[in-house]
């Protein structure tokens, strides 16, 4: 395959990161009130931004595959360790409702002058060190979980990728229609 380019250099990393940070800030995702507003179901910005991004990127990857330029095997797909993904996701969700952010958005918050974003970021480092300290106790449980044979939804459900993307788009549009009256600006 022609793609991916396989670049590991600092300049693309800086440029892609800068676009990421600019878009998150412009989308309001450095604002803890908006982020936690999603978890109180008062503001659907987080859901709308994330699901639109997932659908756009997934459609692009699907098109590149169709064009024969890049297959799923050429990109990094995380292993399906479901218990770990569920437990970790729950703790990150709890961390957002308590502290206002997630790791990436705390950097955005800090860079718009929010001191609580800086503090949250320091908390992330403390949390990582706590995990490292307890790792010898946690490792047996994490290692005991065997990953699924399938790593993607289309492999698991034996359906084409475009169908998964279409269903996701349907869910995103449906949720937006149901909730668009409740969006707080």
């Amino acid at each position: 395959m022609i793609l991916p380019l396989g670049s590991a250099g600092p300049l693309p990393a800086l440029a892609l990161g800068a676009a990421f940070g600019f878009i998150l800030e412009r989308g309001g995702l450095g604002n803890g009130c908006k982020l936690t507003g999603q978890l109180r179901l008062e503001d659907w910005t987080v859901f709308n931004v994330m699901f639109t991004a997932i659908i756009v990127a997934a459609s692009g990857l699907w098109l590149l595959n169709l064009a024969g330029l890049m297959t799923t095997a050429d990109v990094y797909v995380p292993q399906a360790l479901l218990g770990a993904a569920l437990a970790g996701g729950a703790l990150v969700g709890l961390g957002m409702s308590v502290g206002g952010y997630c790791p990436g958005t705390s950097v955005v918050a800090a860079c718009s002058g929010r001191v609580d974003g800086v503090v949250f970021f320091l908390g992330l480092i403390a949390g990582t060190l706590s995990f490292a300290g307890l790792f010898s106790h946690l490792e047996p449980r994490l290692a005991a979980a065997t990953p699924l044979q399938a790593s993607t939804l289309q492999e698991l459900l034996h359906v084409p990728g475009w169908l998964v993307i279409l269903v996701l788009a349907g869910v995103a549009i449906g949720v937006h229609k149901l909730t668009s009256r409740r969006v707080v600006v």
Partner: protein
Amino acid sequence: MASATGDLHKHRGPGAYWNAHLAGALLGLTLLATFVITGHGLGASGFTTAIAARAAAAVAPVSTASNAYLGSMVAEGRNPLNAWITWQVVGLALGALASALWARRFDWRIDGPTRLRSLPRTAMALLGGVLAGFGARISAGCTSGLGLSGSATLAIAGFVFLAGFFAAGVLSGFMLKRYWQ
């Protein structure tokens, strides 16, 4: 986009946020470009892990080298910050700063639950960070690396992460609702 920049000339206050679907579409294209250029997605908690490993190695080199999780990251004098994710998060910070300054949104403050004072807000930010930092190591990825980038590859783990994230987040979000107006 036009209204966000147009507002700057009309008002002295901060510019408006982008429409969520516009921001999402641009974020999706940035993520797609990241996959095409590097073969992997965008992230964040890989950087905090690298900082944690580097700081631990500086403060307690012996116990860090023997730690089962951090040891391999600092083995043979390796610097865990010498990684793609460091540059990407430096870019993230610069992009966010540029956007905040440009939109006149940069303002030093302690944000958080509107009905709490600064000290409890800061304590909650710290606790939330600890929980999220710990959680992101259990799932080996955070909202960016696993929830967003993983789900874009239609990875089961990405959607399972998001299910746990929204379930626990909404449950605790409602429990903490009284601290917000």
